[in-house]
C-alpha cells in the first residue's frame, strides 16, 4: 500500500501527501465533504455567483453553482453576505528560502570561482540550484501571503544571473499541508548577487556572461565525451521550461529580450513598476510582465528648499506609477500582479484599489492575480479559478476587496479552513427607539461593529425655566455575537443613575429585546426598534471614481517631448556654411534638408522640397554636427567590465540608456553622434556603441544602423591598476611588460580559435569548437572587421601596440587620448593609425606629464587623422571650444580645427561616407550657430539629427517653463496628499555623477576624473 501511494504521487503531482507519516496517538479525521453556502463566489475573472454554494471534496472543488446538491455527510458552512475569491498566485516570491549570505568582505579581489569544476566557472551562474531543496516551511510568511490574498507562491532565492529553479508551492496552514506542485521553471537576472568573484562587475558583463553560458550549454549538449558539468546540465534541462527574467528597471526587459531572440527563448518578465513608459515596446515583445504594486509614496514637499531639488522625472513617476497596470493593459501587454514588494498587506490592497481607480478593469485585475499566472506556470488545470477540479485554496472577505476596503475573514488553503477574523456579526449602527419600561428614549449608535458608541437623547425638566429639554448622554454599547449590552447614567425625570440593559439582536429586523436593571434596582423588559441606517454604511456605498487619463513624455522627464518630433524638410538660407568639403567655408549659402539627408549645400539656385520650412540664417554659421569619438554618456550600470583583463565579449550597445539628461545637454552643444566607449580598466575592454543623440527615442533607435564595429583597448596606468591601491595587485598585468603579453596571448588564442572553426567548417564531422564570444571579437580584429580605439598616453606603449598589431597583420585604427602621440606621429602615420586626443589636458597622472596642447597640431602636420574628444559629459557639450584650442596652440587653420570635431572623428569611426561634412546625400545632422563656432561667443541655436529638429534654443526656454509649471502642479498635488496625512518619504537626492574611463562597478562616479 505504501508503495502504491508513492508511485501515484509521482504520476499525479497534486497528491494529498507524498508519504504516510505515522501519527502519534489516535488518527484524527476531517470531514470529507464541505459546502460553503450563501457567499458571493468569484469563480473566475468572468464568472461571479451571488448566493452560491461551493462544494469541496478532499481539498478539491467538486462543484460550484447557485444550486448544488450536497451529498450526505456534508459539513455546511454559512458565509452569507461574504465574498470569496480564488487564492492569488505569486510568481516572484522568496518565501521559505534561507537568508542569502554575502561572503565576508575582503580587499583582495577574487578572480576565480570558489566552487569545484563540476559547476560553471562563474559563481553567479548556478542553474543547478533547485529551490525545492532549500525550502522550509515559514508560518509567518504564509500568513503574510494570504493576508494579501495569495495562496500560491513560486519561490526562490533572488540571487545570481542564472538563478536556478523556483519551487511552486500551494501554501498550506501547516508544514504537512503544503504542496509542492510540479511546474518546471527557471529564473534569470542581470544581477550578480552574492558572488564575490570580480566578474562580472557591470550589466554589460552580466549580459555577456549569460549569453556565453547559454552557448556553453548548447555546445555541452552537443558533446558526448565531456566531463560532467552540473550547471550546464541543469541549464539545458531548464531551457525547455517556463523561463522568468527578473528585471530591476524597464530597460532591462528590452535588453533581456535581445537574448531571448538570440537563443529563441521566451521569458516572462518580473518587472519593476515603471514599465508604462515602454508599453508599446513590451507589446511588440509579446511577453507577459509580472508587475509589483509598489507605487511610490509622495515626497515630503513641505520644505520648498528640498522640494525644488526633486527631479521632474521622480515627480512624474509618482503620478504615473499607479497607472502602470492600466497603461500596460491598454497597450495590449499581458500582466500579472505581484504582491512581493508590498511589505504590508494593507498597502497591497490599497494599491490594488488605487490601480483600479486609475483604470485597471476588474476582470483584468482578477486575471492578473489568478488565471494568467496559472497559465504562465502551466497549472491552469489546477489553480487560478474555483471551478470543478481545482485546488480549494480561496479567501473569504467581508466585502469585495477589489471594490472597497474589506477584511480577510477566512483563508482556505488546500481545502483547510483557517478563520482569520470573526466579524462582529451584527451591524447595529443606526438610530433606535429604546423602549424601557414603557418610556421611549432615542439612542444613536455610531462607530463600527467592533467599537460601537451610543448617544442617548434624554428629556428632562429644566429647573429654572420649567421647560422640558433634551440632554445627550453617552452610553457604552457592546455586542458579542447576538447579545447586546447597553449601559448609561440616566439623568431624565424618570430615572437618575445607572441603567444596564442586556438583550438579543435581530439585525435583519433591526430589533433588540431583553431585560435590564434600573437605578432603583428593578428588573424591567426593554426593546429597541431601528429608525434608519447608520452613516458609515452609506459612506461605504460611495462609488470609486476612475481616472485613466495620462500623458507620457519622450523621455518621461524634464525636456521630454509631448510627442516625438518628426523629420521635416528645411531650407536654411543666407548662412555661412562650414562644408568640410573642398569648397571650404562659404558665405551667403543655402542648405536644404529632405528626408533626413542633405539635399543641397552651396551657393546659387537650390531645390525647394514641397512643404519645406524656411529658416533665415543671416549672420549665422551652419555646420555638420559634432561627433564625439570618446564619450561615456547614456550608459546604464557600468562603463567598465574590469573583472577580467580581457572583456571583448561585452558591448556598450547592450546597455545604452536613452534617458540620460546628458544627451539633451550635448545636443545643446551641437553634438549629434558619439562613440560610447567601454572604460579603460583592462587591456582589452568591451565593444563600443555608435549612437546618434536622438533624444526621445529608444536605445535601439539611437544605435547607428550598420555601424562599423569598434572595441576599446587600453594601455598604461589604468590597465595595470597603478592607482587602485595596494590590494589590487593580483590581476595580470601589473606592468607595461605584462600588457604586451596579454595582447600576444589573446591574439595567439584567437588565431587558434579561428583555425579550429575553419577546420570544423571544412569537415563538419570533426569536433565542433565551442563558441567563445571573447575570441569572436578578437578574430574580427585580426580580420580587420572590428576596429580598435585604444586609450593610450605614453609613446613606448603606443609603439608596442602598433608592433604587436603588425606582427598579427592588422592595424590599430585609433589611439584615443594619445597625449604623447606627437612623439611618435611619424610611426603612427606609417602604421596608419589615427589619433583622438584631448586638447589641453595634462598633469592628472604620472603618464600624462609630457602631454602638450600642441599634440593635435603636430599629429595633423604629420598627416595623421586627428580628432579632439571629450571623455567627459561636461566638456562634450563645448567641443567647439576644444577645437578652437588647436588654433591657439600651434596655429591650425580654422577650417582644419573644425574638422577635429566633425569630419575627422567621422573618418576615424568609418562614418565619413554618411556624416562629417555638408555634402549632398549625407545625413542631415546639422547645427546652426549664432556665430563662428570656434568663437568663445558661439551658441547653438538649433541642432538637427537626421533632419529632425531635436534642440532649439527658443523651444528649450518653453520647455523650462513647461517643466516648472508641471513641477509646481505635481508638488501641489503632493502637498494635498501630505496634508491628508498619507505616508510620505523624504526626498533622496539622485547622485550627480558620470562615468569616466576608470569608473568601476555599476554606479556613476562622483569622484574626480582620472581618465
Amino acid at each position, binding site marked *: 500500500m505504501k508503495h502504491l501511494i508513492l508511485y501515484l504521487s509521482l504520476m499525479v503531482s497534486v497528491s494529498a501527501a507524498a508519504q504516510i507519516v505515522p501519527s502519534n496517538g489516535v488518527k484524527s479525521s476531517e470531514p470529507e465533504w464541505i459546502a460553503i453556502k450563501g457567499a458571493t463566489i468569484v469563480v473566475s475573472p468572468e464568472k461571479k455567483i451571488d448566493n452560491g454554494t461551493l462544494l469541496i471534496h478532499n481539498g478539491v472543488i467538486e462543484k460550484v453553482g447557485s444550486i448544488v446538491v450536497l451529498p450526505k455527510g456534508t459539513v455546511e458552512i454559512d458565509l452569507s453576505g461574504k465574498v470569496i475569491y480564488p487564492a492569488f498566485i505569486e510568481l516572484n516570491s522568496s518565501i521559505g528560502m534561507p537568508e542569502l549570505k554575502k561572503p565576508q568582505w575582503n580587499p583582495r579581489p577574487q578572480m576565480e570561482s570558489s566552487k569545484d569544476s563540476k559547476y560553471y566557472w562563474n559563481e553567479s551562474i548556478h542553474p543547478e540550484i533547485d529551490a525545492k531543496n532549500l525550502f522550509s516551511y515559514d508560518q509567518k510568511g504564509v500568513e503574510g501571503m494570504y493576508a494579501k490574498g495569495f495562496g500560491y507562491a513560486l519561490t526562490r532565492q533572488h540571487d545570481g544571473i542564472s538563478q536556478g529553479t523556483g519551487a511552486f508551492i500551494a501554501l498550506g496552514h501547516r508544514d504537512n499541508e503544503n504542496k509542492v506542485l510540479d511546474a518546471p521553471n527557471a529564473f534569470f537576472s542581470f544581477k550578480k548577487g552574492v558572488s564575490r568573484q570580480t566578474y562580472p562587475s557591470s550589466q554589460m558583463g552580466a549580459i555577456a556572461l549569460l549569453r556565453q553560458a547559454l552557448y556553453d550549454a548548447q555546445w555541452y549538449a552537443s558533446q558526448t565525451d565531456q566531463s560532467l558539468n552540473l550547471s550546464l546540465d541543469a541549464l539545458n534541462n531548464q531551457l525547455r521550461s517556463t523561463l522568468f527574467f527578473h528585471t530591476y528597471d524597464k530597460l532591462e526587459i528590452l535588453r533581456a529580450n535581445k537574448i531571448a531572440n538570440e537563443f529563441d527563448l521566451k521569458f516572462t518578465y518580473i518587472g519593476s513598476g515603471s514599465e508604462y513608459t515602454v508599453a508599446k515596446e513590451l507589446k511588440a515583445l509579446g511577453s507577459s510582465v509580472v508587475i509589483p504594486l509598489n507605487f511610490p509614496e509622495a515626497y515630503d514637499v513641505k520644505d520648498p528648499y528640498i522640494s525644488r531639488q526633486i527631479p521632474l522625472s521622480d515627480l512624474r513617476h509618482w503620478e504615473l506609477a499607479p497607472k502602470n497596470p492600466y497603461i500596460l493593459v491598454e497597450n495590449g501587454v499581458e500582466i500579472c500582479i505581484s504582491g512581493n514588494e508590498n511589505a504590508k498587506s494593507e498597502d497591497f490592497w490599497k494599491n490594488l484599489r488605487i490601480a483600479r481607480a486609475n483604470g485597471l478593469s476588474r476582470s483584468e485585475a482578477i486575471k492578473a492575480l489568478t488565471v494568467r499566472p496559472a497559465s504562465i506556470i502551466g497549472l491552469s488545470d489546477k489553480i487560478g479559478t474555483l471551478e470543478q477540479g481545482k485546488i480549494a485554496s480561496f479567501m473569504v472577505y467581508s466585502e469585495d476587496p477589489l471594490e472597497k476596503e474589506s477584511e480577510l475573514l477566512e483563508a482556505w488553503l488546500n481545502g483547510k479552513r483557517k478563520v482569520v477574523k470573526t466579524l462582529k456579526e451584527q451591524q447595529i449602527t443606526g438610530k433606535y427607539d429604546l423602549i424601557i419600561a414603557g418610556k421611549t428614549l432615542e439612542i444613536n449608535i455610531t462607530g463600527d461593529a467592533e467599537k460601537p458608541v451610543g448617544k442617548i437623547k434624554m428629556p428632562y425638566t429644566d429647573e429654572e425655566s420649567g421647560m422640558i429639554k433634551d440632554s445627550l448622554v453617552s452610553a457604552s454599547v457592546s455586542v458579542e455575537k447576538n447579545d447586546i449590552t447597553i449601559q448609561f447614567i440616566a439623568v431624565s425625570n424618570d430615572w437618575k443613575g445607572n441603567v444596564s440593559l442586556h438583550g438579543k439582536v435581530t439585525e435583519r429586523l433591526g430589533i433588540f429585546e431583553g431585560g435590564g436593571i434600573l437605578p432603583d434596582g428593578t428588573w424591567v423588559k426593554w426593546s429597541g426598534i431601528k429608525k434608519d441606517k447608520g452613516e458609515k454604511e452609506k459612506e461605504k456605498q460611495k462609488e470609486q471614481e476612475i481616472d485613466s487619463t495620462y500623458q507620457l513624455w519622450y523621455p518621461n522627464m524634464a525636456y521630454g517631448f509631448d510627442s516625438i518630433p518628426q523629420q521635416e524638410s528645411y531650407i536654411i538660407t543666407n548662412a555661412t556654411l562650414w562644408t568640410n568639403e573642398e569648397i571650404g567655408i562659404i558665405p551667403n549659402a543655402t542648405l536644404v534638408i529632405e528626408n533626413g539627408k542633405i539635399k543641397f549645400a552651396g551657393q546659387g539656385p537650390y531645390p525647394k522640397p514641397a512643404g519645406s520650412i524656411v529658416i533665415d540664417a543671416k549672420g549665422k554659421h551652419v555646420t555638420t554636427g559634432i561627433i564625439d569619438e570618446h564619450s561615456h554618456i547614456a550608459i546604464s550600470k557600468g562603463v567598465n567590465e574590469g573583472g577580467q583583463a580581457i572583456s571583448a565579449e561585452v558591448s556598450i550597445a547592450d546597455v545604452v540608456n536613452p534617458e540620460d539628461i546628458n544627451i539633451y545637454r550635448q545636443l545643446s552643444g551641437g553634438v549629434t553622434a558619439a562613440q560610447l566607449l567601454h572604460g579603460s580598466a583592462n587591456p582589452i575592454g568591451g565593444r563600443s556603441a555608435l549612437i546618434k543623440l536622438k533624444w526621445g527615442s529608444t536605445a535601439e533607435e539611437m544605435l547607428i544602423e550598420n555601424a562599423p564595429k569598434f572595441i576599446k583597448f587600453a594601455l598604461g596606468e589604468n590597465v595595470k591598476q597603478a592607482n587602485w591601491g595596494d590590494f589590487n595587485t593580483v590581476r595580470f598585468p601589473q606592468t607595461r611588460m605584462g600588457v604586451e603579453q596579454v595582447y600576444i596571448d589573446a591574439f595567439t588564442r584567437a588565431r587558434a580559435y579561428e583555425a579550429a572553426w575553419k577546420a570544423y567548417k571544412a569537415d563538419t564531422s570533426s569536433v565542433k569548437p565551442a563558441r567563445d564570444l571573447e575570441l569572436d571579437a578578437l578574430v574580427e580584429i585580426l580580420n580587420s572587421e572590428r576596429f580598435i580605439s585604444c586609450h593610450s598616453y605614453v609613446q613606448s606603449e603606443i609603439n608596442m601596440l602598433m608592433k604587436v598589431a603588425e606582427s598579427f597583420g592588422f592595424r590599430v585604427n585609433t589611439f584615443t587620448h594619445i597625449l604623447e602621440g606627437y612623439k611618435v606621429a611619424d610611426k603612427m602615420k606609417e602604421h596608419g593609425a589615427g589619433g583622438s586626443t584631448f586638447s589641453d589636458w595634462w598633469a592628472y597622472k604620472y603618464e600624462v606629464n609630457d602631454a602638450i596642447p600642441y599634440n593635435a597640431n603636430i599629429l595633423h*602636420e604629420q598627416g595623421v587623422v586627428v580628432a579632439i574628444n571629450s571623455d567627459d559629459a561636461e566638456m562634450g557639450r*563645448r567641443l567647439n571650444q576644444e577645437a578652437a584650442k588647436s588654433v591657439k596652440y600651434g596655429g591650425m587653420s580654422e577650417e582644419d580645427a573644425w574638422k577635429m570635431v566633425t569630419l575627422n572623428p567621422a573618418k576615424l569611426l568609418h562614418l565619413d561616407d554618411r556624416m562629417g561634412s555638408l555634402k549632398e546625400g549625407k545625413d542631415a545632422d546639422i547645427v546652426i550657430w549664432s556665430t563662428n563656432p570656434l568663437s568663445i561667443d558661439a551658441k547653438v541655436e538649433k541642432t538637427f539629427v537626421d533632419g529632425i529638429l531635436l534642440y532649439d534654443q527658443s523651444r528649450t526656454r518653453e520647455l523650462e517653463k513647461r517643466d516648472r509649471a508641471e513641477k509646481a502642479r505635481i508638488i501641489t498635488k503632493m502637498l494635498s496628499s501630505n496634508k491628508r496625512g498619507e505616508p510620505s518619504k523624504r526626498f533622496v537626492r539622485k547622485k550627480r555623477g558620470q562615468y569616466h574611463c576608470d569608473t568601476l562597478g555599476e554606479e556613476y562616479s562622483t569622484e574626480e576624473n582620472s581618465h
Partner: protein
Amino acid sequence: MKVVIYTLMLLASFSAVAQQPNRILLLDGFLHVGNGEVMERSAILIEDGKIIDVRNSLAYTVKPEEWDTIIRLEGKHIYPGFVAPNTTLGLTEIDAVRATRDFDEVGTYNPHVRTQIAFNAESKVISTVRTNGVLLGQPTPRGGRISGTSSIMRFDGWNWEDATISANDGIHINWPSSLDGGGWWAEPKPKERNKNYSSELDELYAFFDMAQAYNEIKSEERDVRLEGMKGVFEDDLRVFFHAEELQQILDIIDFVKKYKIKHPVIIGGYDAYLVTDLLRDHKIAVMLPRVHSLPENEDDPVDLPYRLPTLLKEGNVKFCLQNAGDMEAMNARNIPFLAGTARAYGLSTEEAVKAISLSSCEILGIDKDYGSVEKGKSATLFVSEGDALDIRTNQLLLALIDGQFMPLTNMQTDLYYKYTGKYKRAGKGK
C-alpha cells in the same frame, strides 16, 4: 640703454635671470583696464614695477630717452593679470601621485595650517598657466571643516617668500552640507537631507565661540590652532565659506551676522542666484562655481552654470569667477575662457574681464595694488594678440608681474619645439 622695440617679441626671450628693464612704456595698445572701462589707445608708464601713469597715447608725447624699453602695441590687447582664486595650483603637481599632493591636511579644524609655505614657486604647471594670462593665485587648502589658511601669491618668485602678495589672507570653512550621504562610488548610498546638519552647525558655532573667547582672554598659554583664528576677530582675515546649497547660504548669512565677520565670501554658491537681494544686503561676495560645469540638477536649464555670472550681476551681488573642481590646477589656464563663456551668456566683455581681475582682487582684498591697470598699481599685466577671452586669440606677447617680464615658454613649448624640430630634421615638418 634706450631700446625701442617695434616688432613683437614672439615668445619673449626674457628669462628670470636676464637683466630686466626698469622704465617701461607700453604704447598704443587697446587697454582693458579691469574696472569695466577701456582705453582704445593707451600709454602705460611703468617704473620700478609700478604703473606710474596711464594716459591716452594720442595726447601723450613720447620721449624715447626717458625709457629703457618702449613697446608699441597697436592693435594688441592689454589686460590686468588674471587671477586664479581658490585653487590648488602650486600645491600639487600630478593629481594621481600622492607624493605631489600638498593641499589636504589631517584634521577637522585646521585654521593654523597655511598654504603659503607649501607653495611650489617652481611648479611646472604654473608655468603653463601664466602663459595664458593668469598671473596671480590664491593657493587654497582642502578638506576638513576648516581646511586652513590661504595666501595670495604671484606666479613669479624664487621661493614662496618672494612670491607672496598677501600672506594668510583668510580661513576656509567647508560649510556642513545640508544634503548628505552618497557613500563612495563602489558602494553608493542615497543622498538625502543631512540628519546631522544642525549638530554639525552647532559644532562649528562652538568652535567659533571658543576661538572668540580665546582671543578676548589673551591667555598666556598659547593654543596654536586657535591662534590661527585670531585674525578673524582682530584683523582683516577673510572668511571663505565653501557652500553651494540654498539652505547653506541662508545659514551662512546668520553666521556672518552673529560673529560680525568683516569680509565674508561664499565660494561656490550655485544657488546664490535665488537670493541675490539677501547677499547684496549683507554684502557677501560670491566666487561662483566653475562656469564650465554641468548643471547641478537634472531639471536645471542646460546652460545655467554659464548664466550664473549674469544672474549675479543683475542681482547686484559682488562676484568673481574661480575654477575649483576636477583637475583644477592644470585647468587654471582656462580661466580666461570661463570669462569668455560668461560673456557669451550675458556679461559684457569688460564685465567678464573684471570678473577674473579687479573683482577677484577686491574680494581677496588686494585691489589696492592688483586687479586693474591703473595709476599707482603694480605693473602686473599682459598683452595678447587679440581678445584674451577667446581661445583662438589668447596669444600672449608679453606678461609682466610687478614690472618683471615673464618667460612665455614652459616645458610644454619646449617639448613642442623639440619635437617639431625632430620632424623638421627628418624633412617632414612645416
